[in-house]
């Protein structure tokens, strides 16, 4: 297949038919939440192996407790112990447990109405197989060895055999004494999500260009403006930017700031300059570092050139350009970049 005679696309590894660049992306962070008075009591009790429900004015007991009654919106009158045994109201089978779920072998999701409660609690039942599961079956909690005041303090529910264990209640009493019921007021929920992140076709050409030491922008077919990095669509006209334009690695500082504040992960020693650099021929400035001179010398209109990392360190990344440095040319006149500020 012959490539279009476009000097910007004729790299040996590049082809318009090559798919967009994509890479796995894992996002992880913790949500830390305050519990409020009702859920604080619920979670504190879970750490002591006790399940509480909220009693509304109509006598209905909600488990998990409702901070406000779903019908009357009134706060609960009191929290009362329920269970520990309960009845499966409905269940579904999870044949292939997913990351983070209560069990790592096949299990059932269920709504469980604990004895003394009027609503169902969502949790897992270690039922063995779907054939062993049925609506109406009796289950009881299996407590996690380590408890912190979380719904995960209940590892799962399991089929109940015999009367609710008296020994368990004794254990619990001991645990209560040991913990002294220090109220648990916060929970931390770790979130981890995996994606396959895909760059746009335009970004991919830009990134592949960088891997060959080129800076490839794109021109809007409607207004003629050149965007770098290319954006996929012109924000003025809303049409795809389809024409590639190779840009030089020289440009003009349109505006800048001197960074004096150290922060975690900073890779340059303060003070240094972060600047908006308008590459020659581009219509939108992009941010980069200006090094190689005293920060006090950097000014609007200063001419700069890209300093590339050694070629053997190049990849499909903007980090191939380590920073910009002054060229020593005369400053660009203000009018030449005034409308790019």
């Amino acid at each position, binding site marked *: 297949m012959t490539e279009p005679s476009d000097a910007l696309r004729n790299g040996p590894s590049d082809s318009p038919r090559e798919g967009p660049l994509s890479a796995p992306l894992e996002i992880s962070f913790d949500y830390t939440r305050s519990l409020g008075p009702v859920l604080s009591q619920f979670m504190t009790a879970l750490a002591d192996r006790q399940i509480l429900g909220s009693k509304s004015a109509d006598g209905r007991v909600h488990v998990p407790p409702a901070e406000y009654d779903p019908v009357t919106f009134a706060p609960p009158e009191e929290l009362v112990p329920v269970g520990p045994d309960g009845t499966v109201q*409905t*269940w579904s089978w999870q044949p292939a447990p997913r*990351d983070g779920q209560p069990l790592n072998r096949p299990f059932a*999701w269920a709504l469980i109405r604990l004895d003394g409660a009027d609503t169902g609690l*969502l949790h897992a039942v270690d039922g063995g197989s779907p054939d062993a599961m049925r609506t109406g079956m009796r289950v009881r909690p299996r407590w996690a060895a380590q408890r912190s005041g979380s719904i995960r303090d209940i590892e799962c529910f399991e089929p109940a055999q015999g009367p609710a264990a008296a020994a368990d209640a004794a254990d619990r009493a001991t645990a209560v004494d040991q913990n002294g019921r220090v109220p648990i007021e916060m929970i931390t929920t770790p979130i981890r999500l995996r994606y396959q992140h895909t760059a746009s076709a335009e970004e991919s050409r830009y990134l592949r260009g960088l891997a060959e030491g080129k800076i490839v922008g794109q021109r809007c077919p409607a207004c003629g403006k050149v965007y770098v990095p290319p954006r996929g669509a012109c924000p003025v006209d809303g049409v795809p930017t389809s024409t590639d334009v190779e840009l030089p690695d020289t440009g003009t500082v349109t505006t800048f700031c001197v960074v004096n504040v150290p922060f975690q992960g900073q890779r340059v020693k303060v003070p240094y300059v972060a600047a908006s650099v308008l590459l020659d021929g581009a219509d939108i400035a992009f941010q980069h570092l200006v090094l190689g001179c005293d920060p006090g010398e950097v000014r609007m209109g200063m001419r700069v050139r890209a300093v590339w990392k050694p070629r053997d360190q190049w990849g499909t990344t903007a980090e191939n350009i380590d920073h910009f440095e002054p060229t020593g040319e005369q400053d660009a006149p203000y009018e030449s970049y005034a409308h790019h500020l």
Partner: protein
Amino acid sequence: MTSGAQMPDVAVVGFVEAPNVRRTDGTTNGVEMLVPIFAEVLEQTGLSRRDIGFWCSGSSDYLAGRAFSFVSAVDAIGAFPPVMESHVEMDAAWALYEAWIKVLTGEADVALAYGFGKSSAGDLRRVLALQLDPYVAAPLWPDSVGIAALQCRLGLDAGFWGERDMAEVAVRARAAAMANSRAQLAGTVTADELLSAPYLADPLRAHDCAPVTDGAAVVVIAAADRARELCDRPAWISGFEHRIDSGQLGARNLCAAPSANAAGSAAGADGVDAAELHAPFTHQEIILRSALGLPGSVRVNASGGALAANPMFAAGLARIGHAARQVMSGAADRALGHATSGPALQQNLVCVMEAG
């Protein structure tokens, strides 16, 4: 007007959905799916971008795996010089609701709502756990299919529906989708064939669950005078309501959808010829028909519905768009579009439209 009520002020005048597919190679900010459908809907209505007085989108950062993904999507609308624009972190049917209010208040005479979702980028069933109660449910990472299956079994046990009823919903959806070139899942199957498949999450089989879809949709609405200029037969909005049930799954009546019933009553669901129901699971179509009081004579999901294509954050808007299309084409005089959000039909929106 069929109801004799006051002439509605706002009408749907245009609708386009992107091809619904299992996987696109575009970005999660939706630009690649949106640029072509914006062009298509503007051509359909004869509008230019500058005629749109208000833009409103529906999408989700959790689905996209990046913060402020909807801001990148704004590139697709050509937002310079600045435009009036807003966003909801939910199905774009709710973006259309915001746009409708904007037109009713007179702040815009033409408004456009759009939704997009690239579900293939992540694990949708896992991502959806993050819409649950963050204290007592989400930390268990319950997946969306497992929760819908809990709802399904309640109805099976109560005798409200059977597995064959559910399979027949899937059969009808796929057959209807054969007339929708942008549907993802279409074809001729029998209930017996479907019922011979193993369970995906007992009691749900794969055919009971909407496919995972990448897609986008756009709907244009206009105030009275503009609507008549833009469309031969505008779909006048005669009722537009949304309601929500408790966030506590176990405290809800899961076999009914009280919030769908309430939204339907308030919006005036009676007397429609056609309905598009946003039911990502077969048993949920059965619940919704009942909650909205739709008799058997009503044509349901001529597009194939969410069982034929379920682009997250766009499928509800697309239901309203397909219902509007029934009115605009003359196939219906009065049609209903429904959208849902949250687990097991927790939140429901109903938009009723009629010919002028």
